[in-house]
């Protein structure tokens, strides 16, 4: 299987051949930043197209079909449009918080995105505390949403922000606890270590029932954390116009939009890494020939394939279920998911012992 560390170390060697160590580091920082931002933007375009197409099929429509073959360039056209749109200055907002909020949301999302292992040897930074880092950084986004709702000086944004605050803080708990079940199983928080341990068998199979329960809980909680239906109370368009980002226009709104789509991908990617083996191919112990064949498929394809499978699950849920009420939402978290995930960790600990 191709190891991307060959490419990255070649670039490193190449830069070191004519730059000093410090400058090499600096150039690498900039390069990695550019690559991550570019990947972020491209993935967002792809996800928006996928969402619109999948949504259309669920509703028995064709979806975007005019710009480019099968409408694949539709989201590029939309991107150009949103970049050219006027930014409307709103009176009586708190300008500093209004501007800072969208950056907080998108920076939290990019920081999480940057630490994901995309393929063999293709990981920006491999923290010893990988899983914890992902949880920590993604929890910053809620501050941005709260500030956006408050600073817009509008009752709809305010209600949206309050709802999303309650929702995100609650669902973060069971998302974290379900990931902890896998940490218990693997005995490590390092993402590369977790992926490597799934070489023989993915954790969702290795961990028997607790891993599967954790997987389902993580998908539900992660889906709720991305503020998408049936958990889209913060931006419920029928009651709150657009929730916390009602007052944002042009690319300012685009930031929230981008972050929402990429958060959906990030949740899918974390679920992939923790439960479905990350970039590891599907291996079944004993089936040597089958494992050999699976190894020929590049790791990037495995990772993105599995991540998009999870994205499809999220879209399926989104377009199939009606929106929950806020009390149902909080009951689901505190009375159902939380106890189950706590018991699940116990079960997992017993299994490991």
């Amino acid at each position, binding site marked *: 299987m191709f190891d991307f560390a060959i490419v990255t170390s070649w670039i490193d060697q190449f830069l070191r051949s004519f730059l*000093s*160590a*410090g*400058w090499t*580091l*600096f150039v690498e920082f900039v390069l990695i930043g550019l690559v991550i931002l570019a990947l972020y933007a491209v993935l967002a375009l792809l996800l928006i197209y996928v969402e619109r197409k999948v949504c259309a099929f669920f509703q028995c429509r064709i979806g975007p079909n005019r710009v480019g073959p099968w409408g694949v360039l539709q989201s590029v056209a939309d991107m150009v449009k949103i970049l050219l749109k006027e930014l409307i200055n709103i009176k009586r907002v*708190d300008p*500093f*918080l209004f501007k*800072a909020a969208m950056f907080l949301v998108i920076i939290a999302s990019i920081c999480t995105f940057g630490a994901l292992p995309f393929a063999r040897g293709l990981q920006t930074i491999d*923290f*010893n*505390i990988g899983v*914890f*880092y992902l*949880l*920590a*950084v993604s*929890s*910053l986004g*809620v*501050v941005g949403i*709260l*500030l956006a709702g*408050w*600073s817009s*000086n509008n009752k709809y944004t*305010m209600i949206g*922000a*309050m709802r999303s*605050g309650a929702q995100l*803080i609650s669902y*973060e708990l069971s998302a974290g606890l379900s990931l902890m079940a896998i940490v218990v199983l693997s005995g*490590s*928080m*390092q993402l590369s270590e977790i992926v490597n341990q799934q070489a023989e068998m993915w954790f969702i199979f290795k961990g028997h029932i607790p891993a599967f329960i954790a997987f389902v809980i993580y998908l539900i909680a992660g889906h709720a954390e991305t503020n998408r239906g049936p958990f889209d109370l913060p931006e419920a368009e029928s009651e709150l116009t657009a929730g916390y980002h009602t007052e944002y226009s042009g690319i300012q709104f685009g930031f929230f939009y981008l972050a929402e789509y990429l958060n959906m991908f990030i949740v899918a990617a974390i679920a992939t890494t923790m439960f479905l083996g990350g970039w590891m191919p599907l291996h079944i112990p004993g089936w040597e020939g089958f494992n050999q064949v699976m190894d020929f498929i590049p790791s990037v394809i495995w990772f993105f394939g599995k991540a998009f499978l999870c994205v499809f699950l999220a879209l399926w849920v989104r377009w199939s279920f009606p929106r929950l009420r806020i009390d149902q939402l909080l009951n689901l978290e505190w009375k159902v998911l939380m106890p189950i995930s706590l018991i699940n960790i116990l079960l997992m600990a017993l299994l490991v012992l």
Partner: protein
Amino acid sequence: MDATINLIIFYALAVVVLSMSVLAVTTKKILRAATYLLFVLIGTAGFYLMLNYHFLAAVQITVYAGGVVVLFIFAIFLVSSKGEVIEPHAKRKVVLGLLASVAGAAVVFFALFKHQFVIDSANTTMIGDQEMNMKVIGQALIGTGKYQYLLPFEILSVLLLACIIGGILIARKR
């Protein structure tokens, strides 16, 4: 050169932390103060990252930036009305506050200058090349031996539990 980059990052973080902490106490709007405080806390997490103490950095971000600041913002949402501006303090309070801050600064500077920092170029932990292993921290937190923290950890948990029950009791009083 590596040291230079470290120094540049350190000064950048220091400037952010210092300016944001001054802004946090001088701003007239309370929600802005909470936001500036958030930036101070993120900057502090940056210092921990520089020291390669990743665990502490992640804890700093989860607990303070993700938890405490969100709690502050919620409290502000619930108790203060829109656009409320903090009124100027009474003169006596200003004087007392100045005295308290001077006393606090004196204690900090005393500790800072009294402490003998070991500057050893051979000691790479000064630059921060070794990462603290998660396992070591976990075992220190749950161990019962010397320099291990099971008892404080449990006592703090009970304290937090008491706080939660107290909060529920106050909230449900009506």
